[in-house]
């Protein structure tokens, strides 16, 4: 089977949707020359009217996309640095997200915000390394974080077809992941449905984005001691609570690994919801960035702040010891 990289899966999704639907167009900084590589080849195929380079005016072009969506188009806005989302939080949350309700159902805002290279890219320091997906889930913006090439393709396609605003976080840690993929089998992945990557009986590990690959590696390494089920929510809002509940109801134990900050992060919400629904055999645990983390520059410091395999291993072992 041919190999497909996560990055090329995103490109393929954009190309397929632009080819399928005239109303889809791309907007962003340096997308003409594909500075992120994700929009490579699209200018040549679709022309400058549908692959529009913008000035450095994040707030204006994000709201420009809102207006274009109100007028019937389906914009995809690329942000090459996740921290730019802080700059346009206002435009996404206060306008795009609120328009349908505030207008009493008159308006639809089908914009996709694509953030390739979200999270730490190592060495990009304080203002380029955030992973703010929990913020968007908190305010209720549809938020997806694919882990694999097939899911990156399928969730980006679904995001573009979705009638509400969607933020697609493509973690830097996943961008170079490659997988054997049957191209003919690439298909939309429904928003709001999780995926069990590995079945297990003793503990459910919920892993977000690129951490799915770490969780799978840890599960494999611990295979002779503990049977780990790896659950990938794929969408953080709306979350597949039923899918996760079914998993934890079988295993009775829960560990969450999440590359966002601990306080008010998605890991806390996952644990809270599961304990509302399931009687656990042991206290749940979470592995996250520290409270209010800012990633330091030096590689050793950067890694020290990110959730890692050692911490996840320790959390699983602790959970297994607790009764």
């Amino acid at each position, binding site marked *: 089977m041919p190999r497909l990289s996560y990055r090329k899966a995103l490109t393929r999704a954009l190309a397929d949707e632009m080819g399928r639907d005239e109303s889809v167009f791309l907007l962003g900084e340096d997308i003409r020359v594909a500075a992120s590589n994700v929009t490579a080849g699209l200018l040549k195929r679709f022309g400058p009217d549908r692959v529009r380079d913008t000035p450095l*005016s994040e707030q204006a072009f994000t709201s420009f996309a809102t207006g274009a969506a109100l007028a019937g188009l389906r914009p995809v806005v690329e942000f090459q640095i996740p921290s730019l989302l802080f700059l346009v939080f206002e435009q996404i949350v206060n306008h795009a997200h609120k*328009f349908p*309700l505030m*207008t009493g*159902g*008159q308006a*639809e805002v089908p914009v996709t915000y694509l953030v390739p290279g979200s999270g730490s890219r190592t060495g990009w320091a304080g203002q380029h390394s955030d992973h703010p997906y929990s913020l968007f889930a908190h305010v209720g913006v549809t938020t997806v974080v694919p882990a694999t090439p097939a899911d990156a393709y399928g969730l980006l396609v679904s995001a573009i077809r979705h*009638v*509400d605003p969607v933020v697609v976080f493509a973690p830097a840690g996943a961008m170079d992941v490659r997988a054997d993929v049957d191209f003919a089998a690439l298909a939309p992945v429904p928003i709001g449905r999780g995926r069990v990557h590995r079945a297990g009986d003793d503990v459910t590990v919920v892993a977000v984005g690129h951490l799915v690959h770490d969780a799978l590696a840890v599960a494999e390494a611990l295979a002779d001691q503990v049977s780990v089920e790896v659950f990938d929510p794929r969408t953080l809002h709306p979350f597949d609570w039923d899918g996760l509940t079914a998993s934890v109801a079988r295993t009775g134990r829960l560990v969450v690994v999440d590359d966002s900050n601990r306080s008010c992060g998605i890991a806390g919400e996952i644990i809270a919801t599961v304990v509302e629904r399931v009687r656990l055999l042991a206290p749940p645990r979470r592995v996250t960035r520290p409270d209010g983390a800012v990633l330091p520059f030096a590689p050793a410091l950067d890694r020290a702040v990110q959730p890692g395999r050692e911490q996840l291993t320790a959390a699983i072992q602790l959970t297994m010891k607790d009764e």
Partner: protein
Amino acid sequence: MTRDDPVRLYRTVRLIRRFEERAVDLVRAGAIVGGIHPYLGQEGIAAGVCAALRDDDLVTGTHRGHGHVLAKGADPARMLAELLGRETGLNRGRGGSMHAADLAVGVLGANAIVGAAGAILTGAVWARRRRGDDLVGATFFGDGAVNEGMLLEAFNLAALWRVPVLFVCENNGYATTMPVEGAVAGTIPGRAEAFGMPAAVVDGQDPEAVRDATAAAVARMRAGGGPELIEARTYRFDAHHTFEHAVRLDYRAPQEVAAGRSRDPVDIQGARLSGADRAAVDAEVEATLDAALEFALASPEPDPAGALEHLYASGLVARTGGG
């Protein structure tokens, strides 16, 4: 009678005036909760600009937005029902005074975030023109908004991409209580000229002067010109917000208010009509607003069970906050 007939222009100004006076009364009576930002004194701008627009042209406005929505042709009865939070309101009671929108008449929404609506309108007009429509847009904002970066970014995008948007600055001299001299370095037309955008200053108290300036700008824009700016000099007769009376803000000298009120757009336009015509319009406006009030007060309040309706255009049902 054509759309820019003096009688029709007077009717619009008078309708907005009496709508606002009645709305202020309803706030004082406790029937409208949350209060309003009265447009009293500024009616000539909305009336004059919209008289020079076509029905299919698009408009966005501000928190002081009733006049824009009414001038563009929204039903006063449904507008009043919206202010009263009724199910029959333009926004089904979900938006209220600051978010009144009527997409059917090209009003993409009043916007409560100062300076936010210009970029949204730019995107909407660009999208519609890409589909072959020759429509234009007009966005209203106050003098305070010219210090908001997002609006200046929108100036740049509109000028760069030659999007026919008329930026209408309603300079009433104050951003809430901050005088324009204390807030705006340079000049308001200078902001536009910096982006290569034609700019004019017009007497906002004279509806016909506003209409004529708008008509000239719209003709150029529709013929393929880029965006333009009009600074309409006006005066806010009443408070920034109806709440202001309760807190007794003191920032305008009584002599200044008296001088401002002496140039009343209702009287300026009314003087262009015969006494009989003016009396007939006044009577017709009262009858319209009597019927509007009757309709609005007789309309049902929304069912609390529907508080989350339209939160997602996709029909996603959010989890409730209780239990």
